[in-house]
């Protein structure tokens, strides 16, 4: 009998809760936590979700196990049909895509994400790039952001490197304010921008003016830890909640679906060891 779950499983459950039933939802590549969250949502509260798999663009696949890379035939086994690249992005541009998940090596207080470069225009560290994230951040109705590296670490020179920062060096994926401080809602994009941010420390939403706001913590994390590890002063919800654990059946599904523990590749070693009671 399973009586504890891992941080990865807590995060997957928190991410899954941001998905509504009967909406068209898409995940990108390089994001096993999101792949798992979508399959969890479809098997629990969102059975009518239209699940579009990243890279293969298969519709409602039922893969036998999670693979180390996204464009693998394993991942579209059981799909009832498949889109091509232009159809997927057309769905977003025409307002059919309900939710997408995005991340960044920098995430700012307005939910902008940088996956392109640290340092700009002079490149200090070239990041891999955001795929279609830039387009989708503007076009998709709602965004859930996530990161597994909220906790600030020291770089080679001993400086603390924040993942959640005041402003991004380069805006790859659009949040609620542009690089020059304008409200993005005035740009006339289809999407309403970031709605949630799930990290390994807590859960944020975004206030009416688009600023990031702390909403909930994991049971083993204090408010001080959040504030110490955030590169700006986040707003605080009037009541900070505790993130609930997943149901036992969800934990068991995750372990069956990801026997190679692919999702742990997204997590730091100290976070893989964290355990939470689900009793």
């Amino acid at each position: 009998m399973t009586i504890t779950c891992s941080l990865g499983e807590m995060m997957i459950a928190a991410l899954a809760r941001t998905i509504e039933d009967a909406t068209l939802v898409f995940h990108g590549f390089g994001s096993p936590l999101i792949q798992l969250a979508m399959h969890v949502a479809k098997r629990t509260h969102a059975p009518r979700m239209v699940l579009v798999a990243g890279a293969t663009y298969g519709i409602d696949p039922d893969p036998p196990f999670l693979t180390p890379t996204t464009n693998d035939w394993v991942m579209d086994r059981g799909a009832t049909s498949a889109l091509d690249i232009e159809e997927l992005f057309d769905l977003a541009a025409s307002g059919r895509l309900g939710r997408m998940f995005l991340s960044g090596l920098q995430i700012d207080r307005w939910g902008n994400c940088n996956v392109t470069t640290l340092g700009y225009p002079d490149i200090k560290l070239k990041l891999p790039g955001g795929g279609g994230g830039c387009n989708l951040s503007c076009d998709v109705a709602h965004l859930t952001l996530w990161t597994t590296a909220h906790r600030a670490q020291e770089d080679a020179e001993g400086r603390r490197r924040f993942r959640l920062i005041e402003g991004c060096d380069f805006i790859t994926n659009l949040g609620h304010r542009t690089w020059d401080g304008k409200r993005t809602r005035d740009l006339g994009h289809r999407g309403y921008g970031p709605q949630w941010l799930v990290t390994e420390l807590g859960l944020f939403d975004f206030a009416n003016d688009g600023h990031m706001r702390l909403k909930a913590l994991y049971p083993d994390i204090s408010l001080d830890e959040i504030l110490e590890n955030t590169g700006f002063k986040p707003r605080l919800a009037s009541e900070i909640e505790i993130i609930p654990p997943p149901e036992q059946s969800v934990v068991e599904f995750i372990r069956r679906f990801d026997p190679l523990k692919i999702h742990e590749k997204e997590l730091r070693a100290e976070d893989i060891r964290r355990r939470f009671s689900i009793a």
Partner: protein
Amino acid sequence: MSTRSRPVYADFDKRKSLDDLASFVTDGDIIAVGGGLSSREPMALLRAILRRGTSGLTAVGSAHGIDIDLLCAGGALSASAESYVGFEQDFGQAPNYRRALESGTVKAEDSCCYTLVQQLRAAIQGLPFMPMRSVRGTSFLSLHPEYRRMVCPFTGEELLLVPAIEPDVALIHAQYGDARGNLVIQGPPVADTLFAKASRVVLATVEEIVPTQRLGELVGISIPYFYVTAVSEVPMGAHPTACYPFYPYDRAHTALYYEAARKGADVFHAEYLDIFVHGAAEHTNYLARIGGEATRKRLVSWSDGPEAWKLLYRDEAMA
């Protein structure tokens, strides 16, 4: 530009050697590399291009990995306009790509998937640009000063205009083709059909060249022969990326590649390029160097079922 008329390739027999295909790519070309991430990338053709010493290429594309990383290491690129280059959660960032872009030897012209789709669609339709809503408000506008804004004359809303991209050469690896250059792609086509229609020259390697009649019986997406300039039969031509149903992603070889790349440019040259690219003058030499029949057998075991498939991706399978 996109207003130029584009050639039609009508020859009955376009079969050529791999090196002949590579010779169509000239210094300074804009190339569109097919496939994506760990799947169906035209790796044998890229290795042949590197052996020729071709340089100054600009790569356009969506989400890629080892293909663009290898071109960076081999000195073929001067700019990358890919939307992503990396090894996803499996190995992380692309070491050769990072070195090349951080040192400035390859210029960062990053793009986004839908922007690329719209730019290719403009070329396909013979139009100078396509409009779109997204991207406005992001830093891509400063990276790409060629983008323009306009007020829609019908609705009054502001739109972004992105210019046509007409690649000089598309490099595609498909499962099947015939002598005339008809292609069948099975599984996700990624941007390959767009690349084939938008590019001036289309070079295709295929796992098998089959009679045209057999091609018609295969399930998959077809690319008509008149887009295709030349075709070459290159079994395992996408290795170490996947080309199902023939073989999956070779995670063990990719780990070897990544380990050499991580150690630095000189180590990568000695431990990878000199052995698997410059040290393998023919594709058959490459196949021998990656382990020959034993490797092929290991990879085809994916078709024995999910348990065998899973085994190929276990960490202990890397040793």
